[in-house]
């Protein structure tokens, strides 16, 4: 019995926070640490991996609250980062919320979009040397102060130009928002806390279409602004019904989540309820925060995971096919963690066994919860689930100090930043420096794919990859945005288990063109450029 136990424990990863040693040391200010008077202090902020200078090493971007500029850390290699914020001209301060990446001008350098309470920033990457704020020039100036949250570039009409979706949380201003305790929606377990989201006015989401070298607000004509009773946060794009068109899932706080199904004529319809992706299995709206997607069962379909509030279960919507979902949270092993407020999340194959595992980062919305002396705390540890052939096993307590240490975390983004074959996690922590969670690579094999569109958008956002190796077929999509207000590395990472060759690798580019590749070796990074006909 004991040797078996030792063997089981030995299989678990040991994650450590290497952020201090790597040079990710600047605190991310985000509102109060003992009390938070306004809801705006609770929602920030996201993080991103973006290889802005195309040197093959993903750089780390950390969105900040108002007392600091958001930071860009250049990946110097050898596990070290250098703060390149000033050098790149990133000097804006404000209530930064989310971040998403994509090469919107198809010039070969990945651009950034940062959302704010207030005007957003479209940051054009100028040759990997600096970022230029082209928000106004590109037609993205907003008519009023908005509480912008999650965002994603997507090419919803497959014209080769990236469009942009921006979620809006609610209507907020400091002057008229009631103080803590002002009405029944300003209490948590009997203590006065910041008001909202309930009780604060809803706002509507935004869609910008790329046309004539600019973005045009098509929110109304596309149907994106139709849902009017949702507090929208995390944005997740994907072709959920397999019709070749990118759809948009939005995790919503205390209200039903939205699943905008792309109708193919420039219009979207929210079909979340009937498709089974709006509520939990009891027909109740959860407090959705972040979202991630993966083919975690190897069925060739993207299922959706959503983080929720404490006293709620996390939600796993299993895709039954054609974008019809069912709540599989409990039966998949996600039925026991109810004291965490989840935010950033992602599927990533930490042990490269070919089965996407799942990590979510947590932290309560209200620092005041610590006064209650209950088992729900403000600082909360992440949760790590191992995907055991489609069933998730919670291995958090035995996966090293990186997982057992608590923070008030929000954004989380995934990348193999040092190209060693294991995926690391960048985590944004409120009023602390970020965490960088790393584990030691195991013996399993892997491959990392960077896709480059030619007819499709250059970032290949929306491209689908089907890979078969070692008897397992995996499916993934290149995606902008996701997690909680965050951006993962645009490269796709596949664990291959013990397989030393890939039997089949097929890419379906946005627009439907298919391309088959036969990589000669594994354990390496591979760039695949879309073939011209």
């Amino acid at each position, binding site marked *: 019995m004991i040797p078996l136990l030792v063997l089981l424990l030995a299989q678990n990863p040991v994650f450590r926070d290497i952020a201090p040693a790597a040079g990710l040391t600047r605190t991310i200010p985000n509102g109060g640490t003992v009390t938070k008077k306004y809801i705006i202090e609770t929602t920030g902020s996201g993080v991103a991996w973006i290889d802005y200078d195309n040197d093959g090493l993903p750089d780390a971007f950390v969105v900040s609250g108002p007392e600091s500029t958001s930071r860009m850390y250049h990946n110097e290699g050898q596990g070290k980062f250098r703060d390149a914020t000033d050098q790149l001209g990133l000097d804006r301060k404000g209530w930064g919320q989310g971040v998403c990446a994509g090469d919107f001008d198809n010039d070969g350098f990945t651009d950034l979009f940062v959302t704010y309470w207030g005007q957003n920033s479209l940051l054009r990457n100028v040759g990997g040397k600096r970022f230029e704020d082209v928000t106004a020039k590109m037609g993205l100036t907003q008519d009023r102060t908005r509480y912008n949250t999650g965002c994603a570039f997507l090419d919803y009409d497959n014209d080769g130009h990236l469009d942009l979706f921006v979620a809006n949380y609610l*209507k907020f201003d400091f002057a*008229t928002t009631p103080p803590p305790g002002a*009405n*029944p929606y300003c209490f948590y377990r*009997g203590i006065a806390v910041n008001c909202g989201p*309930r*009780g*604060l*006015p*809803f706002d509507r989401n935004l869609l910008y279409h790329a046309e004539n070298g600019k973005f045009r607000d098509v929110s109304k004509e596309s149907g994106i602004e139709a849902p009017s009773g949702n507090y929208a946060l995390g944005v997740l794009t994907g072709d959920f019904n397999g019709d070749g068109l990118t759809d948009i899932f939005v995790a919503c706080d205390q209200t039903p989540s939205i699943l905008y199904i792309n109708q193919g004529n420039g219009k979207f319809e929210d079909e979340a*309820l*009937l498709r*089974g992706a709006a*509520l939990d*299995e*009891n*027909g*109740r709206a959860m407090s959705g925060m972040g979202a991630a997607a993966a083919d975690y069962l190897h069925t060739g379909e993207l299922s959706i995971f959503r983080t929720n509030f*404490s*006293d709620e279960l996390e939600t796993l919507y299993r895709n*039954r096919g054609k974008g*019809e979902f*069912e709540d599989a949270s*409990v*039966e998949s*092993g996600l*039925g*026991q*963690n*109810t*004291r965490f407020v989840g935010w950033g999340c992602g599927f990533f194959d930490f042990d490269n066994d070919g089965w996407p595992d799942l990590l979510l980062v947590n932290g309560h919305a209200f620092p005041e919860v610590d006064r209650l002396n209950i*088992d*729900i705390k403000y600082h909360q540890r992440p949760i790590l689930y191992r995907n055991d052939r489609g*069933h998730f096993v*919670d291995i958090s307590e035995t996966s090293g100090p990186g997982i057992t240490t608590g923070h008030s975390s929000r954004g989380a983004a995934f990348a193999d930043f040092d190209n060693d074959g294991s995926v690391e996690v960048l985590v944004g922590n409120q009023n602390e420096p970020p965490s960088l969670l790393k584990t030691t690579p195991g013996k399993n094999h892997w491959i990392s794919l960077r896709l480059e569109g030619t007819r499709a958008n250059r970032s290949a956002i929306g491209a689908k990859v089907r890979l078969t190796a070692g008897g397992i077929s995996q499916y993934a999509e290149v995606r902008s945005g996701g997690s909680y207000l965050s951006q993962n590395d645009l490269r796709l990472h596949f664990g291959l288990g013990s397989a030393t060759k890939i039997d089949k690798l097929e890419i379906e580019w946005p627009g439907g063109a298919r391309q088959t590749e036969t990589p000669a070796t594994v354990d390496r990074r591979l760039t695949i450029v879309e073939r011209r006909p």
Partner: protein
Amino acid sequence: MPATSLFLIAILAQTDAGTLISRAAAGECDAVDAPLQLQLSNRDRQSARLAGLALAQCRIGAKHFDTAGPVVAQMEKEFPADPDVLYVAANYHQKAWNDAIYRMYQKAPASYRVDQLSAEVFETQGKLDEAIVEYRKAIAKNPKAINLHYRLARVLLQQSHEPAALEAARKEFVAELDLNPSDAVAEYQVAQILLAQGKKADAAAHHEKAAQLRADFPEALIAVAKLRSDAKRYSDAISLLERAVQVQPRSEIAHYNLMLAYRNAGRAADAQREKAELDKIQKPPDGEFTDFLKRLGNK
């Protein structure tokens, strides 16, 4: 009825209700009890209402709960939305409750019922650790008492978010079932915990049993319907869910699952109908606070 009594009633009926109420307020409750009782049937309902309130308060103040109760009940029946009547009713129940507790502590301090009651009070106050201690004391004193294990299990689930709490609670629900094998709710709770623990097959057996024990238990019907759906027996699932909706027409969970079951069976029109029903149920109720929020939203 003797002639003297009839005479007395006639005299009392002529007495001004206002005077009686004033005397009651001045503490002359004993003297005005009988005339106030007569005023309850006064044709002037406002006078009857005031007399009833005064009479009830007099009897509650004197701890005559046995005679105060019928007056309060009559007043609630005749003036169901009257805030003064409801206030006096609340006052009566609170004082009667306190009085009963006091007597129980005085006369049967060693009874398991004392511990049970303490546990229930702690539970209401959110003092869950204390409630658990008291429930355990009650169980130790009377291991065969029904409902104690069930309530303890419920508090264990509320008290801790640790997965270990699930197992502790499951054991208590099982103990409840040992005492009362026909408790469908306890059976259902065991099933839910087993499901959360990943023991799907074991959970299924308990869900089936809960539905057998009580054919009108919507949650159990829904759980069994899910099992049928998993087995792709969609028409069986739909029958169960239609029954759940019939039993509890405003149940969100029943309508939601029926909508999905219709969808899974390819009955799109029925699914849309259920969706509309669910939309209707989930619409926030109209009321003062909703109006306030709407106004806030219009700012």
